[in-house]
C-alpha cells in the first residue's frame, strides 16, 4: 500500500516457517513494510521483525509456501505499513489486508496512516458517558455499551456469538448522530464470511459499514494485520470524520493463535500455554485504541468477540482480555440449550461503564434501577432453582415459586429475541418491567415507590409472600 523503495535485494539466505532472512541490506529499519516478488512474478508482503546489521528478518504475510530463495526479490518501503484512511472505505468489502473483495477498485485516499497507531494521551481522554444502542434488548438493558468503551463477548464454540456480533453490527445506533461500523473477521470459515456479508448487506449498502474479512484459509499472519487496519480506518472515521464508530473484532482467539504461531516461528520464549509473553501488551495495543478525545468529535467503541477454548475463562486470551476491557458479555451454553437467543449469562456479564452511560439524561430515568432489580431478582431465582432441584418445586414457598415464574419470563419474554429483530430500549425496558411484575411488590425493593405505582405493581398481599422456603 505504500510506495515500494527502489532498491530490490535478491540475497535470501534462509526461509523458515513464515520468515525470510534477507542478506546485504542497508538502511532497512525495524517494523518496515516489505514487498516481495517471487520468480513467478507473484507479489507478497512482509514486515521486518529483526534488523540485524546487514540482515533483515522478514515475516511474510502470505507465508513462504512455494518460495525459492533463488529469484526472490525484496524491496523495503522505508516505513511501517501504512493504509489509506478516509470515507472511501465506507460501503467496501475487503480481505484481511484491505484489498477489495467486492469487485471494486482498490481503496485509495489522499491520506494514509500507520496501522500500528499511536497511544492516545491518557490526559486527553474524555471519560465515556453516552450509550451505543445495539437493538439487542438484554444487552442494552443489562450491559449497556458506552461510546468509547471496550466490551468483549466471551463465548464458547457452538454458541451463536457470530450471529450476535453481526446483529449488533447491523443494528447499532447512536441516537441519530453520525455512526459507522467496522467489522473485522479473523479466521472466519467461508460459510461464516458469507453469513456476515448477508447479515450486513443493508448497512453496507447504506455506506456506513467497512467489512474486512480474513477467512480461515487466508494466510495466518495476515490475521495480525486485520484488526490493526480496521482500527486505523475506524480512528480516522471517528476522530477526523466525527463519526461514532463501532469496531467488531471476531474472533480474537483466532487472532491470538496467529500471534502464537509467529512467536513460535521466531523462536521466542513462550509464556502461559505457549502464548508469547507480550500477549497482554499486544491485545492492549488493539483494545486501547478505543475511546473519546477531549475537544474532538466522534468515538471508537470496540466489541471483541472471543471463544474460550473448552469454555475456560482462565485461558490466557479471555483472562488477559478481561484485564484490559471494561466488563464482558458472557454467553452461556445452558441458556442456549433452553433455546433462548441471545444466550446471555446475565449474572456473569457486566459493563463497567454502564453507570456513566445509562440512566437519567443518558437513556431512561428508570434504566439503572430496572437493570439492578432484574439482576438481583435473577440471582435470587437461581438460588431458588437450585433449591427446587433439591427439594422439588412443591416444597417451595409460594413466594419462591414466583421466582421460578420470573426466571421463565425473564428468559422467554425479556431476553429472547429474533436475530433480525431490532428492539428499542423502551420496548426492552417494558419487557423488563413485565418480568419484574411477576414478583410481589415487596420483592422489588430496588425500585422507587412512584415507579412501582406507575407500572401497577401489585400490593404485597398474602402474608406467605414474605416467607422463604426453610432450608
Amino acid at each position, binding site marked *: 500500500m505504500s510506495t515500494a523503495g527502489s532498491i530490490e535485494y535478491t540475497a535470501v539466505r534462509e526461509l523458515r516457517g513464515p520468515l525470510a532472512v534477507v542478506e546485504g541490506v542497508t538502511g532497512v529499519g525495524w517494523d518496515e513494510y516489505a514487498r516481495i516478488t517471487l520468480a513467478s512474478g507473484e507479489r507478497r508482503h512482509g514486515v521486518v521483525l529483526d*534488523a540485524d546489521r546487514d540482515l533483515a528478518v522478514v515475516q511474510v504475510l502470505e507465508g513462504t509456501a512455494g518460495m525459492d530463495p533463488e529469484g526472490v526479490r525484496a524491496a523495503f518501503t522505508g516505513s*511501517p505499513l501504512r493504509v489509506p484512511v478516509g470515507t472511501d472505505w465506507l460501503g467496501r468489502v475487503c480481505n484481511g489486508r484491505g484489498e477489495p473483495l467486492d469487485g471494486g477498485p482498490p481503496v485509495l485516499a489522499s491520506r494514509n496512516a500507520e496501522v500500528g497507531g499511536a*497511544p*492516545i494521551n491518557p490526559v*486527553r481522554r474524555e471519560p465515556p458517558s453516552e450509550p451505543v444502542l445495539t437493538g439487542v434488548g438484554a444487552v442494552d438493558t443489562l450491559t449497556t455499551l458506552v461510546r468509547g468503551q471496550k466490551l468483549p463477548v466471551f463465548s464458547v464454540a457452538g454458541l451463536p456469538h457470530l450471529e450476535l456480533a453481526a446483529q449488533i453490527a447491523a443494528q447499532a445506533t447512536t441516537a441519530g448522530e453520525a455512526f459507522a461500523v467496522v467489522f473485522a473477521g479473523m479466521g472466519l470459515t467461508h460459510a461464516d464470511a458469507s453469513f456476515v456479508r448477508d447479515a450486513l448487506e443493508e448497512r453496507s449498502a447504506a455506506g456506513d459499514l467497512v467489512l474486512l474479512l480474513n477467512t480461515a484459509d487466508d494466510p495466518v499472519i495476515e490475521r495480525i494485520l486485520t484488526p490493526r487496519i480496521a482500527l486505523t480506518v475506524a480512528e480516522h472515521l471517528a476522530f477526523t470524520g466525527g463519526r461514532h464508530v463501532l469496531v467488531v473484532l471476531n474472533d480474537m482467539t483466532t487472532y491470538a493463535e496467529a500471534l502464537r504461531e509467529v512467536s513460535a516461528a521466531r523462536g*521466542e*520464549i513462550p509464556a*502461559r500455554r505457549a502464548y508469547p509473553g*507480550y500477549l497482554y501488551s499486544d491485545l492492549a495495543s488493539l483494545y486501547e485504541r478505543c475511546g473519546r478525545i477531549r475537544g474532538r468529535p466522534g468515538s471508537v467503541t470496540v466489541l471483541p468477540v472471543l471463544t474460550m477454548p473448552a469454555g475456560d475463562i482462565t485461558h490466557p486470551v479471555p483472562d488477559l482480555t*478481561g484485564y484490559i476491557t471494561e466488563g464482558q458479555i458472557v454467553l452461556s451454553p445452558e441458556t442456549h440449550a433452553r433455546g433462548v437467543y441471545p444466550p446471555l449469562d446475565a449474572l456473569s456479564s457486566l459493563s463497567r461503564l454502564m453507570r456513566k452511560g445509562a440512566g437519567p439524561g443518558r437513556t431512561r430515568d428508570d434504566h439503572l434501577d430496572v437493570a439492578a432489580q432484574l439482576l438481583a431478582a435473577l440471582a435470587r431465582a437461581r438460588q431458588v432453582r437450585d433449591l427446587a432441584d433439591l427439594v422439588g418445586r412443591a416444597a417451595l414457598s409460594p413466594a419462591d415459586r414466583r421466582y421460578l415464574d420470573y426466571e421463565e419470563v425473564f428468559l422467554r419474554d425479556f431476553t429472547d429475541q429474533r436475530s433480525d429483530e431490532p428492539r428499542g430500549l423502551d420496548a426492552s425496558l417494558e419487557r423488563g418491567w413485565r418480568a419484574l411484575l411477576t414478583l410481589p411488590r415487596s420483592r422489588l425493593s430496588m425500585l422507587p415507590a412512584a415507579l412501582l405505582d406507575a407500572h401497577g405493581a401489585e400490593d404485597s398481599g398474602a402474608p406467605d409472600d414474605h416467607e422463604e422456603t426453610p432450608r
Partner: protein
Amino acid sequence: MGAVREEEDSGTPRRDTGRPPASRILRVTGPLVEMEYTGGVAMYDLVSIGPARLPGEIVAISGRVVTVQAYEYTGGLAPGQTVLPRGRPLSVRLGPGLLGGIFDGLLRPLSGAGDWLSPGTGRQAPEEPVASFRPFVARGERVAEGQALGEVRTAGPLRLKVLVPPGGGGTVEEIAGAGDHPGDAVVAVVGGTRITAGALWPVRLPRPVRERVDSREALNTGQRVIDLLFPVARGGTVAVPGGFGTGKTMLLQQIAKWCDADVIVYVGCGERGNEMADVITELSELRDPRTGGSLADRTVTVANTSNMPMMAREASVHTGMTVAEYFRDMGLDVVVIADSTSRWAEALREFASRTGALPAEEGYPAGLASAIAAFYERAAAVTTLGGDRGSVTVIGAVSPPGGDMTEPVTAHTERFVRCLWTLDRDLAYARHYPAVSWAGSFSRDVPVLAAGHRTAGDPAWPGRRDRVGAVLTEADRLADLVDLIGIAALPPRERVSVLAGRLVREGVLQQSALSERDAYCGPEKTAALADAVLAVVDRCRELVDAGVPAASVEEVDFGPLLRAREDTGPHDAAGVAERRDAMLAALRGVRP
C-alpha cells in the same frame, strides 16, 4: 521531530566534561537495540537513538556490542543510524512543580503533549517557577546535606522544602531573597555548588537517608477491613493480588483518595486508559478532608497505560519511587501505589526474552525475585539526612493470570511484603466490597502497630482485632457445615456464631466506595462499629445461653446496626454508639 534539547542537559551531573563519542546502531528488534561500543559509556547510561533521539538505557555491554533498552516505539530505526550517549544515567527532574502533575513513565509531562503520543516527542518537565520562596538560612551559615535552605509554596496547602542535595553542604555563599523566582533560578550557592529548586536524580539510585527506623505508626487508609484487620505501618509494603473484576483498581483508588499520607504517587503501570482518565478527573474534583485542598494537589500521577511503550513501564515504577523519595526527604509521609506490578514484571520478561536470557518460571527471568525484592525494599520509614522523620509506603497491585496465586509474580511478591490484601473472587461476585479476603490476607505489622495503638490511646485495638478475626474464622468454619446440614440442625451457640459472621461482614467489613458517607471511615468510627457489632453479638449469646431460641434471635431486625456505617458520618463514633445502644435495647425485648 526530535531537535535535541541541549538545555535538558544543563546542570546535569557528568562524569567528565567531554561528550562521549557518538556510536552506530547494529541491530533493532522491538525495544532491543544493539549499538557499537565506542567508549565513554557505562551501564544504565542514557542514550539518544536515531534521528528522533528516542531515549534508551544501556543494559549490557559485551565486547564491542552495547545492548540498549529503548523506551519508545522503535519502528523505522535502522542499523547504521547514530546513537548519542548522554554520559549520565536515566534521570528524572524532581521539583516542587510535580505535585498535581500527570507524567509518563519517564516523568515527562502529559498535560502539554498532543492527543496522541508519537515517539520522540516527549520532553522532561520544564522547571516550574519558584513560588513564594522563604529562606531558612542566612549567608555565611554552615549547612549540611539534606538540610532545608528554605521552603516554597505549591498549588495546594503543602509547603515544600528546598534541601541541600545529598553529598553537598558547606558555607552558604548566596541565598535568594523571599518571594517568587523564575524556575531555573539558583536559590542558593553552598560550598561552591549552585542549588536550584528542582534537580535531576537517577531513577534507579535510591536517595540516601541518615538511617532507616522502625515505624510504629499505622497508615490510616479509611478502609475498615484494612485498618481493623490488616493494617500497614508507615514505611511498610503491601501487595494486593486479585483477578480481574475483583475491585483491585477501585480499592487502590480509594486508598489514593482517603489515606492520611502527605503525598500520593499513583503509578498506573500498564492499565486501562479510560480508567486513568477517570482517576485524573475524580482526583481533581475531590476535596482533601484533612486540608480542604483538591486531592489532586497532593498527588503525582505517573500514567503509563497498557498501550504506551512497554519498556517505559519498566522504568515507571522506579520513577514513581524516586519521586516518592524526593518528598520523603522533606520529612513527609508518602504512599506509592503501583497498579499493576504484574505488568511491570511482564516488561522485564519481554526484555529478558529479547536479550535471550535463560528463562526461569513461565518465561520470567531468573532475576525476577530479586527485582521485586529490590523494588519493595525502597519503601521505608527513615530519618532523613536533614534529621526529619519521613516514610515511603508501597502498595503494589498484582494481577495473577487466571486468578492463579501460584504464578511467579504473586508467589515471589508474597514473600517480600509486610502485608498482603488478597482480593477474593467469590466475595466480589457476592458484591461484598472491598473484597479483601480475611482468610487469605495477612499483616506482619500487627504486633508493632498494636504497641503503637497502645501508646496512642487505643489499648483495646489488638483485642478487638483478635475478636473480629475469631468471629470470621468461626463463621467460615460453620458455613461449610450449614451448607451440608442446614442452619436448623446447629446448636444455638453455633447459630449465633453464624449470625455474628454475617453482622461483622455486613456491618463492619463491607464499605461502599460510591457512598457519600461511607467511602472513607475514620479510625474512631471503625473502632466504634466493630465494638458495636461485638457487643450485640455478646448480647445475642447471653440470650441463647438464657434459653431464648436461636431462631427468635435471628428474627430480630438488625437493620439499624447494619445501616450504622451508612447512616453516620466518617468520624461519628458517638452516632454509632447510639445505634448500638438502641440495638441492645431492642434485644432486651426478646424473650424465650
